[in-house]
């Protein structure tokens, strides 16, 4: 059951990511990114991170992607024009990315015994477990992020405002 769910949503994830790569229109890429993020939240749930799964749906596939689609519609972004990218990207970028993938996959697969097995329902991190750490040990960083968000909102408003 766990393996079937994992395979289904992992394939959905990779298909969505590839669709993001292949689509020409930004709105199609945005919608396939929503698919990726929603199926990632199911994978988080399978790993026992229920709060993070809910936050993933609300923050990523909700708030951030709404922002993206809103900007795409606001700027009336059409199909992207294929122009020549930098040659360095083709010479070093793709082999580098492929080498990174190969190396990581090799390490993870060859040492998969050391990483252990994930059983469904074990080590379920509830919201209270998470908030106990967040509000006791990490209260100061938590409060500092609120300042960060405030500054980000001010910066976004200042940047996007029409100049007079």
């Amino acid at each position, binding site marked *: 059951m*766990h*393996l079937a769910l*994992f395979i289904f949503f992992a394939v959905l*994830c*990779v298909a969505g*990511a590839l669709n*993001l*790569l292949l689509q020409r229109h*930004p709105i199609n*890429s*945005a919608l396939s*990114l929503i698919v*990726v993020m929603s199926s*990632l939240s199911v*994978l988080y749930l399978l*790993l*026992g*991170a229920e*709060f*993070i799964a809910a*936050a993933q749906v609300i*923050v*990523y596939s909700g*708030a*951030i992607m709404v*922002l*993206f689609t809103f*900007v*795409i519609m606001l*700027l009336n*972004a059409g199909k*992207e024009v294929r*122009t*020549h*990218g930098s040659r360095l990207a083709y010479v070093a*970028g*793709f082999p580098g*990315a492929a080498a*990174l993938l190969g190396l*990581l996959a090799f390490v*993870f*697969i060859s*040492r998969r015994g050391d*990483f252990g*097995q*994930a059983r469904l329902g074990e080590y379920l*991190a509830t919201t209270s477990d*998470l908030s106990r*750490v*967040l509000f006791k040990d*990490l209260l100061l960083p938590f409060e500092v*992020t609120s300042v*960060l*968000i405030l500054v*980000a*909102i001010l*910066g*976004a408003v200042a*940047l*996007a405002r029409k100049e007079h």
Partner: protein
Amino acid sequence: MVPIAYYLVLSAVLFSIGVAAFLIKRNIITVFMSIELMLNAVNLAFIAFSRQWSQITGHLQVNGQIFVFFVMVVAAAEAAVGLAIIIAVFRARNTLNVDSIDLMKL
């Protein structure tokens, strides 16, 4: 039962697709979206390692999930500022193509 290594491999695959999309894509919004994809891939690795750490120590460890929480907060702030910058760039240059926005290129 799924080996945690499979989750890590999936995370590596998503990250590499994100890198490739970052290099291929010519629309500034899509480039920004591929950065979000890479962030998500790293989040998956954090959750998987958090689970592995729980299994090694024998009781629940949530440090990896706290990391993901903070990454999400920072990503939300980053998306707001980044999209505002994209709007400002579009107003100034009237294009979304990253090849036309190369004033800082040597």
